[in-house]
């Protein structure tokens, strides 16, 4: 190394600091320490072979356009398993763009299978496709009443 002024012996306090820093090196912060708790997908860093993609995010993968290219099932996965993240927000946005509507009581996404048989101020009724997060698949429901008070209709901006 280059030390134009020559090395200066470390003072006692600096020796102590160095010793403590060196000890702290064995208790380094983990990426998850400064993130909200990920209940389902905790971070689990692992050394990957160099020929695998190292970057977790491919460019522009944090846009609605990218999320719209994902399969519906992927969007449901992101929605239920990545709570409170930007990804969840983008997944919800992409689902809405694909005419899925969130039911706040059942906590499930519904999509009209046909024009509703009844539409009034309070509800609409007809056949719907919905995503059952417990059975993890799409189901059809005939004669379902979607009460508008359970419709999540906030503008996602």
């Amino acid at each position, binding site marked *: 190394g280059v030390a134009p002024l020559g090395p200066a012996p470390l003072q006692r306090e600096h020796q102590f600091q160095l010793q403590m820093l060196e000890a702290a090196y064995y208790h380094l912060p983990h990426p998850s320490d400064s993130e909200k708790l990920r209940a389902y997908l*905790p971070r689990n860093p692992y050394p990957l072979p160099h020929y695998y993609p190292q970057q977790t995010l491919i460019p522009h993968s944090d846009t609605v356009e990218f999320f719209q290219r994902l399969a519906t099932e992927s969007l449901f996965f992101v929605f239920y398993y990545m709570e409170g993240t930007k990804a969840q927000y983008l997944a919800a946005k992409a689902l809405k763009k694909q005419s899925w509507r969130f039911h706040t009581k059942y906590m499930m996404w519904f999509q009209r299978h046909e024009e509703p048989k009844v539409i009034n101020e309070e509800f609409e009724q007809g056949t719907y496709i919905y995503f059952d997060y417990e059975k993890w698949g799409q189901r059809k429901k005939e004669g379902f009443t979607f009460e508008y008070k359970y419709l999540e209709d906030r503008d996602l901006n």
Partner: protein
Amino acid sequence: DRAMGGPTSHIHSGIVQAREFDDPQGLLEKTEYLLREWVNIFHSPSASRDPTKAFSVFVHQMNVHGILKTDDLITRFFRLSTQMCVDLCYRALADQNSSTPVLVRTKCFHTLDAFVRLIALLVKHSGDASNNATKVNLLNKVLGIVAGVLLQDHEVHLTEFQQLPYHRIFIILFLELNTPEPVLEVINFQVLTAFCHTLHILRPSHAPAFAYAWLELVSHRVFIGRMLAITPQQKGWGMYAQLLIDLFKFLAPFLRNAELSKPVALFYKGTLRVLLVLLHDFPEFLCDYHYSFCDVIPPNCIQMRNLILSAFPRNMRLPDPFTPNLKVDMLQEINHAPRVLSNIASLIQPASFKKDLDNYLKARAPVTFLSELRGHLQVSHEPGLRYNIKLMNALVLYVGTQAIAHIRSKTLQPNMTTIAHSAHMDIFQNLAVDLDTEGRYLFLNAIANQLRYPNSHTHYFSCTLLYLFAEANSEAIQEQITRVLLERLIVNRPHPWGLLITFIELIKNPIYKFWNHEFVHCAPEIEKLFESVARSCMVQKAQ
């Protein structure tokens, strides 16, 4: 500590109270019970459905147990809770072997996050809705308590110290208190102030085993965003600059020796990354505080300093330094002084020296001032530690700015002619001649630290350095000027604009007879180096 007014007094009293152990009987058990209750409530499904109700139920419980009766009891409750959270983490981390790292952390976060939410809710709901002082005081108190527990833990555990619980508490609390809610938005600046004070108290030189977590906190994107971008009128800049100065001061003694152990190298790498982010996103911030930063960065940390000196205001277009026949004198920007947010004049101490300096600048007499100058700067005889670097830096910049003002007062512009034959140049020439190698190196570095984007300081000091080269009475001075410029250019990018301009002028303009000097040809590798630099500067080698 008592004398300290304002928010820091609450932090300091919290730190002091973290060392009290004469708790009333039964308080420990009560706290343990309540904390466990709260952790359960926090994670229960009903709490996520109706958080307000869950909180009011819990506050009622705290009331029943008499915790909220006095400030003293609340303080003790927070201290005991913090210690319990910390103990839990130590136990979980000690258990690493029988569990996976992910599970260990999940377990820690389970309790820590609940505790943090409790702090955030108590801060938000303390006092009346409009009583901001109560909320801010409570926050400062709690931060002080956590900091106090940390410092004590640090003293007790030493090399076994674990940063995790404190890191988690600070960052999650910071994020919670920066969510978009009206009640939090009105106190946002006080929240930032509270965290900055706390981080300053916990700076790496005070709590070195916390250093990595500290750096993560200071460089967290939300923290940087709040401090430098979102808070209006750059009100957070000064506080953030202080934290960076804390960081550089800590690193200085280790970097100076250029022998980096792995832990220091990692910490240094993190520091460079923070600087790169700042250079890219907040160059004006680095511009404004470049002086204070360079003052604490050791002279041999070339790249770190280049990162700071390369910053320039985003609205500015820098002319390509390699443009043939670039006329720096014609640039509009060189008439404008850069912002320097340090009071340079006040750094020139003692006051009697400052008075003599001003007298000399005015009267260009007595000559004894020049011969005594070295004595003011030299502080010891120990090699490598001979000079007061801060005084050298202040002196150089002060004399330079005075010179610019003096030239302007004669309705002239600084250039190679107007800067000569003045009290100011007497001082610079005297320093160049009279100082030993070490002193001259520091002196020339102080000048080179002003070679940045196009502004009046860059232009003045560029002319000054070239003038000192041209007028040097010995090759040693010229060699050293070349050395200082060259060593800042042979490192990886970025390179400050003014530095390139000055060096290109030196090797290009025949008046300096650069290529005739012996030190250019002293060794084949040096000669090759100069040739490659010359080639990269795209100029014809003057024969």
